């Protein structure tokens, strides 16, 4: 396979259509990710100012070469130093990573059996099951999180059910705790874990499990020896699809969580909208991207290895 690729490359035989097809996603990324990101990086190197836009220096192209020189002279890494030196930001980052890691782990534990059951269900009911998993998307995400406020509050459904079952005698405080955040995150992100897992488990050839049994491997053991390794790609995709957005999650911790330890998304929001400090907020965002590069790079590396067959 690799040889064929090299051959095609050295022959320079890519047609115009192929070039355009390959170019399309790159152009998309350039226009909608790279350019905005460069603008954010630029803002993060600026200083906050009482102006419109609320930062300085502004690039004054009309002033010619001098203007550009002034502009670059005005940039500094001061905001990054502020962030690194302020415990609030460091704790926010760590808190976000912790919340994302724990909820991804819970999502794996919940999503794997669910996806497995779906993939093993009779072929005729599988489309229905997939629809059921996606069904929550039919109502607004915000409304669903508000519904959780209702469920989790002191006289909410959860406390009522627990008291009716006799598990607690006093209403417990759920809202404004980390538990509430985890409940909200796991609830909201479950489809993102289940769908890629389901896709990879559904492809699994049943005869492989028969072959394993035939060779003396009991069914429970075959799950770990065959099913899990072959679903690894779906597992990785699901985990990252959850982990990465959860790190930057804002709505769920803001509505369900407490105010004692905020996640980085909330810090970012406060800097942007409450403090109107765009440069620091931009620096926070840039560092978040840098932070997320690590898991993304790991995933990319794993995928390439998978494709090359090691």
């Amino acid at each position, binding site marked *: 396979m690799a040889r064929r690729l090299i051959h095609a490359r050295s022959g320079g035989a890519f047609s115009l259509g192929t070039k355009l097809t390959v170019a399309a996603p790159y152009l998309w990324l350039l226009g909608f990710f790279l350019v905005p990101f460069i603008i954010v990086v630029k803002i993060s190197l600026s200083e906050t100012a009482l102006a419109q836009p609320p930062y300085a220096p502004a690039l004054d192209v009309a002033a010619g070469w001098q203007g550009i020189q002034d502009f670059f002279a005005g940039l500094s890494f001061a905001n990054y130093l502020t962030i690194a030196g302020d415990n609030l930001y460091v704790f926010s980052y760590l808190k976000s990573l912790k919340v994302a890691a724990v909820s991804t782990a819970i999502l794996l534990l919940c999503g794997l059996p669910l996806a497995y059951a779906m993939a093993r269900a009779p072929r005729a009911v599988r489309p229905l099951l997939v629809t059921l998993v996606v069904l929550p998307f039919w109502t607004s995400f915000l409304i669903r999180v508000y519904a959780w406020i209702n469920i989790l509050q002191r006289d909410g459904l959860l406390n009522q059910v627990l008291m009716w079952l006799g598990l607690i005698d006093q209403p417990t405080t759920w809202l404004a705790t980390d538990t509430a955040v985890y409940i909200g995150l796991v609830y909201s992100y479950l489809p993102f874990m289940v769908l890629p897992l389901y896709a990879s488990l559904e492809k699994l050839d049943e005869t492989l499990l028969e072959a394993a049994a*035939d060779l*003396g491997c009991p069914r429970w053991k075959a799950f770990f020896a065959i099913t899990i390794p072959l679903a690894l790609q779906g597992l990785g995709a699901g985990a990252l699809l959850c982990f990465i957005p959860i790190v930057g999650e804002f709505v769920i911790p803001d509505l369900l969580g407490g105010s004692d330890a905020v996640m980085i998304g909330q810090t970012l929001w406060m800097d942007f909208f409450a403090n109107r400090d765009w440069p620091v907020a931009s620096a926070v965002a840039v560092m978040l991207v840098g932070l997320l590069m690590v898991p993304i790079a790991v995933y990319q590396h794993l995928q390439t290895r998978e494709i090359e067959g090691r």
Partner: protein
Amino acid sequence: MRRGFAPWADPTAAPLVRFDNVSKRFGDVAAVDRLSLDVYRNEFFALLGPSGCGKTTLLRMLAGFEMPDEGRVLLDGRDIAAMPPHRRPVNMMFQSYALFPHLSVAGNIAFGLRQDGLAKAAISARVDEMLALVKLEGLGSRRPDQLSGGQRQRVALARSLAKRPQVLLLDEPMAALDRKLREETQFELMDLQVRLGLTFVIVTHDQEEAMTVAHRIAVMDRGRIVQVATPAEIYEQPRSRWVAEFVGDINLIEGVVLASGAGEALIADKGGRRFRVAADVAVGTQVFIALRPEKVRILPAPAPPDAPNTMHGRVWDIGYLGGVSIYKVRLDDGAVVKASVANVARLTGQAIGADDEVWLSWPPDAGVVLAS
């Protein structure tokens, strides 16, 4: 080993595998219908039949993937109904090979051995032995998707042999190979079976394959066995019209028995021709004479008056297969009889061509009389 090996003829021999009145239904369809069958130790046994005849279901019952609805499956005299697949001392080579894509060739072959908790050194020694056995030395670290179809087939074989199963089950093991490779592999399988002293049960729809490799063949149709016999018996002594037509090429001549005695019957066909056939059948019975094309002689001139069972017609079609040619001869009354001739000499021009007038003849012991 092959010559004189006939435990099925020995009434004191105990079978290694016994299907005892086994039935298996899927919905309303009986995939296997009150079937009994014995397979003996060291036998290479073939289950032959068209698709959907229940041969694979039978194999899967032996492996433990299907449970019989009725009857018993015995292995070495023990009922194995309660034994799950992973405990059965049989291994299967799957039609799709079912190689584990995330494991190397060596990892695939070692998989079964690891389940037995063998020591690492013992496992790697056995893996090397298996790789040598199927001539894949040096490919142990490859992944299945880096192998050719023929190599994958060998890995599947090595993996299923690694545990030295009491019975090796082969489900259409050569279906995905091209003809040349398939023939080679058939002979290698026979060689392996003898060398390792194992019992093989192969499922195939390819009658040539079954006849090549097997000591005995069970011909199956709609969940039942129609005949169990050696390849030669199946070919030369088919028990029914169905077997005769399924295995090999055949001419069927419908007729009525006019006279019978001294081991020979006189049979008249619809066209009024009379044939002498070596058989004992009651006078007046409606029968079929089954006649293999290679046993029919084809002559360009009138047959001598003492020639038995002669027919006259014109060549309608010739199939040249290289080694043999098949002549389709249309008789005077429109019936078509096939005669095959070995092309002993190099052909430059056809000795007998299309539309030539020909005479056919066959000896009385060449035909088999089948009651309907």
